[in-house]
């Protein structure tokens, strides 16, 4: 049953996920429109985009819960179209909604998902305890899943996805609505998982609409309208806008924004509470800073600070989607 294993085992760089030109449409809605994806062992890959960009559909295609209209997917050497059960046995999947049984206890849930994935009665208990220890739920094994806090539910989901020691972990918006402290913990777990088992080569694909979360991935793909519009490491993506983002603080903000927008070298000015973020043309930041300072002074407005700041992924995303519109 493992015809592809030979080529897979002997390749030097293990590419656990190999998806080629995926298409999936629901009626007229092209949810996934030509997505290609390679994820190497030991990599945390972020699919970043808004609701409806195609992240969840892409995840479901990868795990074989949806059939693509076109394209090929190979997971850990198994063709998802032909060997879906074998492919799935290598995947741990955490869906967007909390999908544990709320009327079962923590341990009953883990046991159920362990056994259903084929773990024998002697294997599941030590394995489950180990994983519950890892995610910090060992003390709550007899609690009904419905009575867990949001963060603990998330960890239970992660534990049940990990109990069979998958090589590929698919996490669909795992930290939506959870406490930043829990979110921090959750990420520490994911990073440890990949780092711990570097030799074995675990990969994680995580989808998120949040840019701050995207910045924690090794590599991100920005999704929009079913397509991956850019793909690179967060720091490489950010360098595209190095020295092009300015932060302007002062009052009144509205007048300051007017002045900024009128400057020929300012491409965009966005208000952020008590400050403005300006995107300037390449190599123009010093000129713009000097010019704006002078103008603000001449109009007797109050300038608190105007400085260059490191670009964020959000700035990059906005630049890319604008570019895409043209």
């Amino acid at each position, binding site marked *: 049953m493992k015809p592809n294993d030979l080529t897979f085992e002997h390749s030097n760089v293990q590419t656990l996920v190999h998806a080629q030109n995926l298409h999936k449409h629901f009626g007229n809605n092209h949810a996934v429109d030509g997505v290609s994806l390679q994820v190497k062992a030991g990599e945390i890959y972020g699919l970043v985009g808004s609701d409806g960009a195609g992240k969840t559909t892409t995840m479901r295609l990868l*795990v074989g*819960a949806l*059939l693509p209209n076109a394209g090929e997917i190979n997971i850990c050497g198994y063709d998802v179209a032909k060997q879906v059960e074998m492919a799935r046995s290598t995947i741990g999947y955490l*869906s967007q909604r*909390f*999908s544990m049984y709320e009327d079962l206890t923590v341990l*009953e849930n883990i046991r159920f998902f362990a*056994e259903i994935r*084929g773990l024998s009665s002697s294997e599941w208990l030590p394995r489950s305890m180990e994983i519950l220890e890892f995610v910090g739920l060992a003390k709550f094994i007899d609690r009904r899943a419905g009575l867990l806090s949001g963060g603990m539910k998330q960890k239970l989901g992660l534990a049940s996805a990990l109990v069979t020691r998958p090589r590929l972990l698919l996490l669909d918006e795992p930290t939506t609505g959870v406490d930043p402290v829990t979110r921090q913990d959750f990420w520490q777990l994911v990073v440890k998982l990949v780092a711990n088992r570097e030799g074995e080569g675990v990969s994680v694909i995580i989808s998120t609409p949040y840019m701050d979360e995207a910045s924690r991935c090794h590599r991100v793909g920005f999704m929009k309208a079913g397509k991956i519009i850019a793909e690179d490491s967060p720091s490489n993506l950010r360098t595209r806008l190095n020295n092009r983002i300015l932060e302007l603080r002062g009052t009144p903000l509205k007048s300051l924004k007017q002045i900024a927008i009128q400057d020929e070298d300012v491409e965009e000015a966005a208000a952020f509470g008590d400050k403005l973020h300006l995107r300037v043309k390449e190599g123009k930041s010093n000129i713009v800073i000097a010019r704006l300072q002078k103008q603000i002074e001449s109009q007797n407005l109050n300038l608190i600070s105007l400085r260059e700041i490191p670009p964020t992924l959000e700035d990059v995303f906005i630049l890319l989607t604008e570019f895409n519109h043209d």
Partner: protein
Amino acid sequence: MFNSRIFSIVRKEFVQLFRDPRTLALAVVIPIVQLFLLGYAATSDVRNISMAVWDQNKSPQSRQLLDAFRAADYFVIDHFVGSTEEYQKLIESGSARVALVIPPDYDRAVLQGNAQVLMVLDGSDASIGSTALSTARLVGQSFATKILAEQASINGRSALTPPVEVRTQVWYNPDLDSAYFMIPGVIGMILSFITTILTATAIVRERERGTIEQLIVTPIRSWELILGKLLPYVILAFVETFEIIIVGHFWFGVPVRGSLALIVFTSGLFLMSSLGIGLLASTIANTQQEAMLTVMMYNLPSLFLSGFFFPLEAMPQALQVVSYAIPLRYYLVVIRALLLKGVGLEAIQSEVIALAIFGIVIMTAAALRFRKRLD
């Protein structure tokens, strides 16, 4: 065929079932409630018909006629009246169903051999009306025969016997107790209703809560998932079947004449159809409500066209033809025959074959539709 993956689903279903007291109550208590409701209330036996009498003769002869009606066990003489208006009022208000009018010259007319009495019937309830009508005729005829015989013996002739006499023997249910008819029917109804509803909602609930997604992405195979989800409901259905048989037997005195093995076997065949319908509904419905409605659209017509309430023979020809497409129809024949008549397999052969075909076809269709995918 049976593996640990299926077992883990079965165990999970049972744990959930026992933690959900409402569903469990629905599954265990409803059959008993239905049984008592239908065993007592839905009886179609007509007894104790209330009767008004206007005896204008008041002779020994007229009193003999009234005794004959009393003896027939179908009538209770509740009212003696003195005018047409009086019995009319009683019938209109429903206090009396029938009125018997004995003319003033009844005793003389009997002796002359041309007596006439008037029987007024409330025909608004057809079953009471027709029972009253036929019973009244029978009472009248046998009373007339008796008088003829008496007169003959008085006149010194040898006792007269009627030229033809129909002797009736009622088999299986000598008292014509309708509980006998109803209780096997309740088994069929429960196996059909509870099983389809529970199966359909059990699967749709996983879709509603999003847990189906987590199940789908495991390497479990479709047939394992189906079997694991259905088995608990098969077990539950058999528990219910025996629950009804036991209560039916010990409380209502319904006989269990056929072999238990045959009852289990045929019930299993019928269950395949019910489970299949439930599974099919779960592939159509997105919410538990939709699932309930979908199975009801199947269950209600199938109950009315199966011969559960009304005899099939009484239905219009076209509906009788439709009834051949309803698995419950065959099962009712089978379960009534097994419980009441104690027949063997040969007697119900064709029904059993029909059940098997329905079960296999519906189940296959449902399993084919039930794909382990989200689209």
